[in-house]
């Protein structure tokens, strides 16, 4: 079983480390998605180091909680938490999107340990998660199914088919969360295809819905623990996040949805992320300088 990290500050530092990993992966890969993974670093850190029951030494453990990444394009954040929690070596991260890599451009179930299902075509993971949750109920299993979705993804009818199915069948073992960052490829979600009032819509499908600041570790942890206790209804956590969180020139800019930093931008990004980590650690300027120098390296 994974050793749970309970201290909020430690989790926050971990999400900074995850952000570093993401930048390093993306600059090396030369293509992929930046904004989504950075925005969701806090939620994924919380899930893999605090919320979920899982065992990196036994990825096929029958009673593990499952995470389904329906917004498959944000896989760098998943790969980073999988590596940091021990599913595979950190050095694999550098192989993202390269020929022969276990880390495919969009997740593939059989390529790397810890990946439950192949995703990429938006909407698909939602049904798979519902299927697993339904099967778990049939078998009287106690594990939870965590379903990661994008807000732009919710333009897909398949998501709403899942919302209906899960509501009807009272799948209270299903805990979905939406990265409500208000961006998708072509622009702002409310201009491309308005989703609001999103919470009310999903509530009306017979779900429990919480809306939180998805970059606030305390709120994340408490929302998931509430969701885990839900009885009779599936849970939705709408996570309001800042796309590109932690990197000033990426934050809130839809242009960074599917763009990756070039080397100079990556160095600047790493510098900012490490500076933030320093602040969290309350280190003196001398020690900080060392850290920033070290983490700003693209070895």
């Amino acid at each position, binding site marked *: 079983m994974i050793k749970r990290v309970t201290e909020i500050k430690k989790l926050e530092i971990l999400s900074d480390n995850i952000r570093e990993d993401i930048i390093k992966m993306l600059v090396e890969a030369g293509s992929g998605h930046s904004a989504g993974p950075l925005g969701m670093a806090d939620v994924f850190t919380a899930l893999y180091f605090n919320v979920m029951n899982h065992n990196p030494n036994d990825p096929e453990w029958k009673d593990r909680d499952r995470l389904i990444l329906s917004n498959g394009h944000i896989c760098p954040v998943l790969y980073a938490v999988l590596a940091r929690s021990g599913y595979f070596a950190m050095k694999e991260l550098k192989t993202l999107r390269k020929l022969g890599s276990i880390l495919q451009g969009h997740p593939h179930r059989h390529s790397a340990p810890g990946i439950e*299902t*192949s995703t990429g*075509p938006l*909407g698909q993971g939602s*049904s*798979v998660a519902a299927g697993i949750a339904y*099967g*778990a109920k049939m078998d009287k299993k106690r594990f939870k199914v965590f379903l990661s979705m994008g807000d732009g993804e919710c333009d897909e009818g398949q998501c709403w088919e899942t919302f209906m199915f899960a509501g009807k069948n009272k799948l209270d073992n299903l805990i979905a969360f939406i990265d409500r960052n208000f961006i998708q490829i072509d622009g702002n979600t409310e201009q491309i295809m308005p989703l609001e009032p999103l919470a009310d819509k999903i509530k009306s499908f017979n779900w429990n819905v919480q809306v939180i600041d998805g970059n606030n570790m305390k709120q994340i942890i408490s929302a998931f623990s509430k969701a885990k206790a839900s009885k009779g209804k599936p849970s939705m956590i709408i996570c309001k996040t800042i796309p590109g969180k932690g990197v000033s020139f990426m934050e809130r800019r839809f242009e960074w949805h599917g763009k990756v930093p070039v080397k100079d931008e990556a160095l600047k990004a790493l510098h900012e992320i490490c500076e933030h980590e320093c602040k969290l650690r309350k280190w003196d300027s001398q020690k900080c300088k060392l850290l920033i120098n070290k983490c700003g390296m693209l070895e």
Partner: protein
Amino acid sequence: MKLDLSNLKKEASREGYGRALVKLGEKNKEVVALCCDLTDSTRVELFKKKFPERFIEIGVAEQNMAGIAAGLAMLGKIPFMSSYAVFSPGRNWDQIRVSICYNNVDVKIQGAHAGISVGRDGATHQALEDIAITRVLPNMTVLVPCDSIQAEKATIASASKKGPVYIRLSRTKTPLFTDYNTPFKIGKADIYRSGSDVCIISCGTMVYESLIAADDLAREGIKATVMNCHSIKPIDNDTISSMARKCGAVVTAEEHQINGGLGGAVAEVLGKSCPVPIEMVGVLDTFGESGEPEELIKKYGCTSKEIISSVKAVLKRKR
């Protein structure tokens, strides 16, 4: 093998699927059935009545059904998902491609009401492309049984076949000419009649038409082999190639577009292993329309008549 074509009972192949699901359900509690608001006409009704706790109603949402089936399979279940072929694998092809085939999970897909013989519902409901879109998918097995007893066998065999399986079925009652002793093995084409002038390779409802054609041809002195190629994928390369070599000419017959269907699959095999003249019987790059099944199979050229004329055409090209 001798098949008696006189006084045949008629039954739709979907009936065999319905019976097989119940038999499978009795044997294996991991078998579950999913359906999209079509339980009666897909014959999943029988399973639903017997095992209500293992039947999952999805509503009219074929994409959702494919994903849910994939999720259930990940827990070790053997889900059978049913709808009309135009909707599944038609509507939900992307979900079948990624959630089922790329994941390589044990989901079995029933495409009911395939072919032109669907009848009055018209072109929107007549799947003429489903063989083409399923057989291109990696990991997928594609089966087209020739009558209801073979549909039953194919369904039962699909449960123990690893990975995704597509089973193509028809709506109308067709002659029941195989029996429980007729051999059936996934990946093995069966020879129902031997002759050395031409080899007729067919699947589904067209196997019966091929046998009728072979009878008529025999009266004219033309000796035809009739091969039931129920496994479109994996295809039986050996049997197809050796029969083509023996006969020197091939006619394919299917209730499907000839592009990408059985005709295409056979041409792929023979182009590589034994190029001989081929003529293809099937729907010729067009949509269907409303009408009685018998009227439609005539109008769209899916009867013994077209097989006979194609045999004559291919014999002219034979070297």
